[in-house]
């Protein structure tokens, strides 16, 4: 198992120092590419900056991309380099050097990859907890909760449409989602039947809707405009058609809108069950 280079060919007197050559190429490429990637790709990465959580995800993606670029370049450039320089001459039957391993390289690799990977895990955890879940559904008891006032909005997923309830506005239920800009929203996602998933793309929110489970996600929209809502968990025939456009409006416009909704949907609100974090509508068992 020792590394004795079997120079079966009595090679050319000046064998280039492949290690140094490759290392230089890779280092240069990484030093050029990584800042380019961060500067050029970073700003345009999805899901965009329409909310604090989405902006946080863009930052995370940029960091991950920056860490992945040198790794990608390492293997790709190595593949290209070895394809060019380490070839069997046409029709040849030469043997390569019988190197079975190198303890130093292996140890270095193990240490570097472990450090990289652990730092990514720590970074991810810090961002997840620091950003109050980063827009993801954090279950009924999230580890961290943002301080200050929060507007609770319940997202009710059913086969095959989302409806939304505003408990602090009389529990009115609406077919479309409108949110006030600049306020911290506490989304409560639940389902009335099978598993769905509430995905507000531009807001960077995704929370599965499970029956009789209250899945909480925090989001603070920062940009006015509309955002796309799609169902992200296969729920039956119209899973792909379970989409909608939500809107982020100014707080004043939101107040106007919600009061108008309360008026329009007063008959429905009268027959709705009281607001609750989960529902158990009947029929639950086999209907009909």
């Amino acid at each position, binding site marked *: 198992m020792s590394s004795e280079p079997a120079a079966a060919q009595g090679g050319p007197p000046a064998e280039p120092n492949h290690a140094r050559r490759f290392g230089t190429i890779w280092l240069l490429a990484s030093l050029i590419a990584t800042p380019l990637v961060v500067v050029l790709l970073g700003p345009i990465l999805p899901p965009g900056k329409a909310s604090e959580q989405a902006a946080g995800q863009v930052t995370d993606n940029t960091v*991950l991309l920056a860490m992945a670029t040198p790794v990608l370049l390492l293997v790709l450039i190595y593949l290209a380099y070895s394809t060019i320089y380490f*070839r*069997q001459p046409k029709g040849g039957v030469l043997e390569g050097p019988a*190197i079975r391993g190198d303890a130093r390289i292996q140890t270095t690799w193990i240490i570097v990859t472990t450090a990289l*990977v652990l730092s990514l895990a720590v970074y991810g955890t810090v961002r997840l907890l620091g950003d109050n879940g980063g827009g993801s559904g954090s279950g009924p008891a999230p*580890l961290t909760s943002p301080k200050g006032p929060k507007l609770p909005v319940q997202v009710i997923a059913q086969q095959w449409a989302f409806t939304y309830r505003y408990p602090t506005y009389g529990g009115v239920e609406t077919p479309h989602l409108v949110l006030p800009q600049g306020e911290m929203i506490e989304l409560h996602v639940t389902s009335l039947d099978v598993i769905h998933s509430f995905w507000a793309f531009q807001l960077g929110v995704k929370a599965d809707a499970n029956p009789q489970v209250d899945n909480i996600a925090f989001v603070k929209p920062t940009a006015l405009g509309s955002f796309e809502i799609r169902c992200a968990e296969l729920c039956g025939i119209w899973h792909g*058609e379970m989409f909608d456009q939500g809107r982020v409006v100014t707080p004043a416009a939101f107040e106007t809108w919600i009061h108008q909704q309360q008026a329009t949907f007063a008959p429905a609100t009268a027959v709705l069950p009281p607001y609750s974090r989960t529902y158990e509508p009947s029929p639950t068992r086999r209907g009909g």
Partner: protein
Amino acid sequence: MNTTTAAANTQPTRPLWRRLIGFNLLTAVLLGVGGYYLGWFIGHQIKGTSFAYEKKSSESDVALLLAYFFGVIGFLIGLGFANYPLSRLLGRPASLREKESEGWSRYFGLCTDHKVVGMQYLIGIGLFFFIGGLNAMLIRVELLHSTPTVVGPNQYLSLVGMHGTMMMGMMTSGVLGPFANYFVPLMIGARRMAFPRIEALTFWLLMAAGFILVSTIFFGGFPTGWTGYEPLNDQAVMGMDSYIMFFALVGISMTLLGLNMMATIITMRAPGLTWSRLPIFVWSVFATSVLMVLAAPMLVATLLMAALDRTINTSFFISGGGGSSYLFENLFWFFGHPEVYILALPGFGIVLELLPVFTRKPLWGYRLAISGMLGVSLLSFFVWQHHLFVSGINADLRPFYMLSTEIISIPTGFIFLCVMGTLWKARTSFTVPMLFCLAWTFNFLIGGLSGVFLSDAPSDTTTHGSFFSMAHFHYTIMGGLIFAFFAAIYYWIPKMTGVRFNERLAKWHFWLMFLAFNSTFMPLFVVGMEGQPRRVSEYAPNLHGLNTWVSISAFVLGVSMLIFLVNTVYSLVFVRAAAEQNPWRSKSIEWQIPHPVPVNNFEQIPVFDSDPYDYGVPVTAIGGAQPASAGA
């Protein structure tokens, strides 16, 4: 016909009708159909309050499940699997080896020669791989339009489900089935597998399962995709039972296959073949078998619970009845994550096994590669909740699973280091198998790096359940395993058939497949990041251009598969150009045996004195391998 021990090479030819009677595929199909109707009848006789819903829905899940069950039993009895146990029960001495020297008909029945089983697996899995691929082509046809146009929405969901289920169920045995069954006994110097009859059983179970899955279209298909999530699973029409039966049979087949492999590798190694001299491919088979044996039974148990929920109204997974939809997700992914490593590990093994042959260097970092594989095996049981990051699981769990998922990339990285080390200062010949190995490295790199994004919970918030995760697993499973699968085919077919492929067609296949594959799946990362969920046939109009590009690339990918098929038929059926005994100049033992490999593999059990990576130094023969003379 079922108890011959002495292989009579020159039998007097009996009339055809006489030859058709007996335990063979025809009998198996007849008994299978009989069993199906028996089960259907019994199912409809079962009445009770639990089944009152059946009248309302006019569907009987009990009947279909029983029909499938008895059908499979009938099928296996017809093939002759009950003969040995029954003979022994009755005190009769029965043959240990069935039909090992009977000519081409032994490929169509129960044969205990591991080489025959390996060939059967290759053809059988290939057939279902192409059926799954056809489903994929239909999916991409529908995705040429941004609204449901060609295929109705529930047919589309069934297509998606069938594609995924067929591929996942079949390709888990995609390498172990054909290549491990054929070559592990040869590589360890054994005459057979530990349990030859079970080996044949795993193949026929898989064939029955594949047929059952295809039959789902006659029962309305199933809407859940390959993950079969509850409660949608419970809500589905009868076609769901086909999925349940398919995966249950696949799970049993996988468990038995892994068990057989482990028993063979542990107990039947020839003298001198210590663990540190084992070919890396055999190590990868071992690591995979551990996963198969431990994870696959979980699937069978979970599906049994799902079947109970569907039939007798239990509430394992229905929260209204006291159960939980999370239970299914967790049980399924506890199997599901080791499952994807069952798919990845054999790919590692093949690439590391083939690289020394084509670089003319020993495998670099042999022990590192082994620790990488075993590390992946062990860690794969600790990561499954990364599929559930946004599903509302207990928030305390997420940092742990982020950590474990990140950590599993460490042993995976070892494999890359070993690949790179083996390429270092190599003398590489770019044969078709080598090209596939290099393509594996490229594809799995991209797949693995995209996995880093998915394992970061905040980033996963956008990418979970989107085409990004779809592209990730296609890069690792298709770009990884399937490319390695083709590398193995091109590498080992000269040994298995004595015939070589047409080199030009093979290179066309490779280049078209590699370019089309990347052209198909690279844009899907973008499509997913731009907000398209999985399993939808309606998507945002602004993604129409990308989806069209992907669909057209997918059709080109399909064409590359056709080129492979054409090459197979052309080279293996028509031209049949004889291959040399060792065209790749490999030092591995299976290439030192002439073609055709005799039934008992070796006249004398070989003695090993080193691993098969003796490249780069003067060649010495490996142990005392005595190739058996042909025809014995």
